[in-house]
């Protein structure tokens, strides 16, 4: 296991280097730059733009800029945002908490409910409940999140006034109950869509498990249906779900841009889009590297979980 982890770490480092190089290259090759945002409104002359570009070191060669960025990155300095001067790590930290609140709660809810619906649908295949859940899942997957979000706002915030229209907190409050109150609508909308995904995956995996020989054997042995499902089918059906768990890692941190936009949620998705729009290179690169790390970590954890869940799999 130790050797395996070491080997994976080296592979990950090389991959990270590659991701950073390509990401940095694409960002710098794209036309425009961090100062373009000021051109149409601030009355800055070209000489002002050129002067500041030079002061920021943006007129240096790509290689020099990349190596400098890499050197600082390795030393733990992820740089500062071009927009407000805040360190990239602080910036990410301040946005990651709202994102985690939103994503973790909605994902856990979706996983629990989705897996439950999936198992039920597979065990009671073609039942009314199964048909309804399949149709519901198709509906949830087909309708854009922003529409769901706006409908939720319309009915539950504007018409019924049960929940706020958006934002993470009431300004001046920010207590836990206040945050939870603001979380209800966005979490519900996100969980609804995610539940459909989990339910579909789980139903499919469960159906496959239920058709295996060992299930028939278990039934032939006279085990109760409950015992067959819980002890044999679900455990095996959960194996493919590990992949889904691994894939969720970067998504959890990446945030949900549409939901964050509709509900004015100050999360990572919005930070990434804003940073990209304003060509805030250090922040974009910071998020890119973090996402790459989380993707690799998610994949590694999934691999390890496979070994734990299925003794037939060996780490080598």
């Amino acid at each position, binding site marked *: 296991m130790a050797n395996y982890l070491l080997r994976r770490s080296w592979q990950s480092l090389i991959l990270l280097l590659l991701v950073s190089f390509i990401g940095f290259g694409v960002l710098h090759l794209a036309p425009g730059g961090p100062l373009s945002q000021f051109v149409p409104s601030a009355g800055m*002359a070209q000489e002002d733009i050129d002067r*500041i570009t030079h002061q*920021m070191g943006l007129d240096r060669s790509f290689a020099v800029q990349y190596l400098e960025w890499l050197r600082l990155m390795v030393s733990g300095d992820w740089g500062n945002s071009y927009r407000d001067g805040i360190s990239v790590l602080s910036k990410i930290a301040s946005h990651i908490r709202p994102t985690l609140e939103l994503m973790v709660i909605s994902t856990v809810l979706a996983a629990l409910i989705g897996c439950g619906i999936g198992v039920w649908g597979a065990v009671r295949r073609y039942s009314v409940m199964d048909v309804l859940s399949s149709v519901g899942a198709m509906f949830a997957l087909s309708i854009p999140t922003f529409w769901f979000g*706006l409908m939720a706002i319309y009915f539950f915030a504007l018409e019924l006034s049960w929940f706020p229209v958006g934002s993470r907190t009431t300004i001046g409050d920010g207590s836990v109950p206040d945050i939870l109150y603001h979380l209800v609508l966005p979490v519900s909308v996100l969980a609804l869509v995610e539940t459909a995904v989990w339910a579909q995956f789980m139903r499919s995996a469960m159906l496959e498990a239920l058709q295996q020989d060992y299930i028939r054997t278990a039934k032939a042995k006279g085990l109760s249906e409950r015992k067959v499902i819980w002890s044999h089918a679900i455990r095996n059906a959960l194996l493919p779900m590990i992949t889904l768990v691994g894939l969720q890692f970067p998504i959890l941190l990446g945030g949900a841009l549409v939901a964050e936009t509709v509900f004015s949620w100050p999360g990572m998705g*919005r930070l990434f889009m804003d940073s990209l729009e304003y060509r805030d290179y250090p922040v974009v690169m910071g998020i890119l590297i973090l996402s790459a790390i989380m993707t690799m970590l998610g994949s590694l954890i999934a691999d390890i979980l496979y070994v734990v869940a299925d003794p037939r799999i060996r780490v080598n």
Partner: protein
Amino acid sequence: MDNFTKRSFLKLSASSAALAIAPGLITSSAFAAGKPDAPKGQVIAGLSQEPTVFHPLMPGKEVDRGVWWQLFSTLWFVDDKGTLVPDLAIEVPSVENGGLSEDGLSWKVKLRKDVTWHDGTPFTAQDVKFSLELINNPDFRAGSRIGHSLLKNITVVADDEIHWQTSEVFSPYISLLAQTFIVPKHILADLPDPNKSDFNMAPIGTGAFKWGKRSAGDHLLLEANKNYHGEGPFLERVVFKYIPDQTVQYTQFSSGEIDYIGLNGIQTAFEEDAKKLDGVTINAAPLAFIEYIALNLEFGPFKDLAVRQALYMGMNKQARIDIIYKGRPIGAESYVPRGHWAYKDDLPAHVYDSEGAKAILDKAGWIPGPDGVRVKDGMRLAFTTSTTVGSKSREQAQQFLQQNWAEIGAEMTINNMPGAVLWGDFWQKSQFDSVMVASTFVRGGDPDVTARFSKKAIPAKGGSGNNNYQYQDDEMEELLVAGTREYDQEKRKVIYHRIQEKVREELIFLPVQQSVIVEGTKEDLIGHTPNINSTSNAWNMRTWYWTT
């Protein structure tokens, strides 16, 4: 909220797919009795862009400037009537009061003695000297040095008086100073790197509000400065809330969660619904933004004045304003906004006449080719028009124009791109054919457009400025110089009238409209006043107050 109908909601849903961004700002309402004795209540302002630059001498956008106006002060500012009003200075220097020498080169500015920084340190002339020198510090990332680079011999005569000279007469400088915020020397003087400081993230100013708390990506809270030297503040707190999606922003306004919509105002699609909301005031306010089609005058067909005239005559400006913008903007013929002291109101009015446009092109030798597109000397009358992706109204306007111009035999292709790309080398180095753009030509209320139309201001030819059209004309050059050498407003008016005539006659760009913003505020929020002379309609939040 009672009037937030299902129909309006469907419209709202349909348009929310686009996360558009644009510029603009605020409202009106006459001042009434009832200003509180002490700061009371808070205002939540919804902004579709996030303020992120808090050092007021660094490059910033309108949204940042809206915050600077609350935190900092200028020596004087331009009010909504175009008058320079002293702020940190006791009076605006002029030849009459002895603040300005007869030759216009020496300045004497007397300052208030009762001003303190938010940390309690007294404000002095040293702060003014430091601020002006910081702008010219080669290591400092100053937003713009226009005018400031002419300064020399800055001398602090006393704590409340400062003198300086300029290397040449530059009358617009008085207006530029109306937008130059003064920063504290005692905080910034000893920094090893003038660009990096805690000040940039929690500034200290002399404005009516002081820094409270910022939640990055969400909101910024400012608190009343009870030691403010001027009128107000009458609000305890001001919150700038970042809501990137305009549909969501409007929804929050209609539900009462935000008190006024700033920067972009209310989208045209929601305007009628907004008027039906209870307890809010909806106002349309002209902005200094002129929307126009910038032409690259070095691009083949656009070198020909006849083409420019035909394109202008062939575009149905009024229909565009009426259909796409619901009649909100004001048709424009000049770069100077209506109501400005330099505005020339008798410029030839635009006439939409596609037959007339065809006749102009025929006469100039542009003959329809086999595909209907006109050709002259082997050159097709075909070009691209660009604007920022996601600007829905402009994208509709482009399609409108495409049809208009196709009728007269001009082929226009839409080539839109993200703002960061459009405003990069593509615009700055004049790589475009034509661009649909809105901008303010009158900086600080001054009509000087040297940076726009001088041949020395063409970036694509190594010049310094914003003459991205690559316009060159000797008479214009003389007029521009004359305008910056003259302090007398009546004499300047004559010069700038002639400049406007030339811009209109030669169609350096195709003027379309003066932007009008529709803004909403709670009806019991009093004091906000649109100001086309300011970079932000939030310029006077210090005098806003609640009647309830």
